[in-house]
């Protein structure tokens, strides 16, 4: 789906949803990090939010997070007994920017796999919402979300960025192997 179509879809559904009650999302504070380690990251498990259940249970979870600085931000979701696809929909996750003029950053088609790699986005300072959709394939399924931010580098810092993205890719592969 091209971006214009996505925006049109979001706009139409937003208007259609005006009469519906909207529940608040869950705000995810940034990981505190170790002294001197100032990379921005957010890591959490669905159990922390009571998100587990018997086979066949679907979920739609909405996470809010704040990017203080401009960041290259990558997203990875790793499921255990989970498929990241709502039963009656094709969505996997959706990323929005909030503020007075909410906008769609990207959405990912759902998958029957146990993980989704959301790609890397350059996000400017602000508040964003990550929506995650899926279903538990077996009882007591859970999933992890890892959001990893790396600073937008000065021209001399591109090597560091590439190294950071490499680490993220390595984490994804390891998680896949564990799932």
């Amino acid at each position, binding site marked *: 789906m091209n971006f214009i179509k996505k925006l049109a879809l979001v706009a139409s559904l937003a208007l259609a949803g005006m009469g519906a009650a909207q529940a608040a999302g869950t705000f995810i504070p940034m990981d505190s990090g170790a002294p001197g380690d100032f990379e921005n990251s957010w890591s959490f498990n669905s159990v922390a939010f009571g998100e587990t259940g018997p086979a066949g249970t679907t979920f739609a979870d909405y996470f809010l997070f704040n990017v*203080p600085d401009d960041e290259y931000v990558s997203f990875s979701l790793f499921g255990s007994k989970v498929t990241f696809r709502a039963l009656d929909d094709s969505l996997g996750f959706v990323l929005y920017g909030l503020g007075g003029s909410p906008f769609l950053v990207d959405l990912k088609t759902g998958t029957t796999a146990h993980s989704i790699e959301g790609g890397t986005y350059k996000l400017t300072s602000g508040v964003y919402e990550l929506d995650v959709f899926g279903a538990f394939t077996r009882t007591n399924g859970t999933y992890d979300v890892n959001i990893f931010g790396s600073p937008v580098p000065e021209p001399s810092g591109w090597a560091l960025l590439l190294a950071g993205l490499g680490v993220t890719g390595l984490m994804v592969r390891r998680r896949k192997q564990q799932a």
Partner: protein
Amino acid sequence: MRKMIFGALRAPVGLSAISIAATLALVAVTAQAAPLGSAPIAPLSKKLVDPRIVDLGVADASAGRDVTLTLALRNKAALDAFVANVGNPKSASFRKFITPAQFAASYGQTPAAVAQVVSFLTAQGFKINQVHANNLLISIHGTNAQLAATFGTAIHNYSLNGETYQDSATALKLPAQLAGIATGVSGVSTKAAFHTHGATIPNTGALAGDVASAGTVSGVVPPSGPGSYTVLDLASQYNVNPLYGKGLTGAGRTIGIATLASYSKTDVFSYWSQLGLAVDPNRITNVNVDGGALPKDGPTSGGAGETTLDIEQSGGIAPGANIRVYIAPNAGNGFLDLFAAAINENLVDVLSVSWGSPEIYNGQSDTDAFHAVFLQAAAQGIPVIAASGDAGAFDINRSYTYPQCTTLLTVDFPAADPLVLAAGGTTLPSSVQHRYGPVTVTQERPWGWDYLRDYITTYYGNALFYESYYTVGAGGGVSVNYALPDFQTALTGTLASAPAQSLFCDAAFLGDPSTTGYEDLVDLPANYVGRNLPDLSLNADPYSGYSVYFQNAWGTGSGGTSFVAPQLNGILTLIASGLPAGSRIGPINPQLYAAFKAKGYAVGSPFRAITTGDNEYYKAAAHYNPASGLGSLDVSALSTALGGK
């Protein structure tokens, strides 16, 4: 976390459905002509209402207080054109200013309209304290019962962060008898709305002694260096000395300081005398507005430090100038009356203020009322200067601290008003010895303490960095209340407001027992083509900052854009003393930007490019940028550019 069967792509929960509904509702409201006498005084849609406020119930109906009724400008388009011309060196009307009486006659309300308002208010039981000379403000005294009856709202007691105050329970409504004349009421809230823009080197707890010289107190002038500079050092740094060499001292000119706290004259005269500056012992005149400072803002208060440094800095740079210090209460209509008093007197050549608050605290009628007074200042030739703030790009996070709240790109008022010169801040080159080693800044950069991030997080941890160093720096960014002014059009480096700007705060931080998690307090528009600030920057970082003489002693390690506003006041007063007698500089921003567009950073330009660093978000560059504005100054060249000596 709720579970649901998901049917379709949905709008973000953060606000979309609500905000879209609100937007459509607003469109519906504004598309209709509201009946006179029932229209609430509209706040800006962005105005932040603090959820920590606790309603304590209806206030004592017999309690009396002062408020100021604001009246509509007449001939607004003509006034805008007039101000544009008197600030345009290419106009035949350049610097042909008018008096307060002429301003009132052309742009204030007519005597008949003012009499109509006075008659109405008197009939409601109000006492008329003052009809201001501009015919735009009427200060009155009345009881809460009279306010409630006249403006259609109950007055309640509230508390916030331990402070109690009174305010209207609902939006005020202007009586039909005032329709077309009055625009609002300033000062219904008695809350202290403004704070100083000073900063010091963190020197408590784990950071005590991190920089050995921080906060030292001495009976003699501290040795010159980063953290203990004086106006003499400033004159060298920014090439003021050639003006002194030409005999300029500010003589024959008057500095205006607008402030909300009192001070001790002994301190400021000691500062000048110990620096060897010869000054007239009768140079200062205090002007109390609305009774002067509140008791809590007396001469030993923190606010007194602000007033003290404002006078020391401005009067030290222009030692021959007279100084008028306007002092008002930090409550109610004090801040508006403060500017009105100074501008209606028309005795000062430059006016500066180092107090402010996030622009999104203001409603539309407040914004308009202040803007009208600033238009008057421009028409009379008085440049107005304000500190741009000390929370870097995140002005509001000074109060709504990170990470308890999300970051929100915001700017400060009154610096955000395009008629005001927004004074930003830099860090001077320095190598400051800290407990665990030196931190070096190699060239002048915007003040933003992220340059200390590696040092602080390595030796003191991330939490302390967030607590004491994050969202600290020179205020700068994009206004969402004021459109991009003409003088900033076609200017490389200006930006529109950023997307994704929402302020969420932890309910526990807000003290809200009704919920857990985070609450959405305000959402700002994206891509608004707003006024960019600051306009100019000078050294403001406490680590490369200044000494202050306060309470009979010298203290080091002070900074903040609070220093820059009065420094620019002194600089412009000094330059004005080189203009022909009777002339003033006038609207300063159009002249600055015209000079920049003509000269850029070429040899002989008044502007020095700040090309590296940031104010914790916006980055410096060799063009205009919201971190340092047009850059720092060569004051001698600025004098030439402004037609001075």
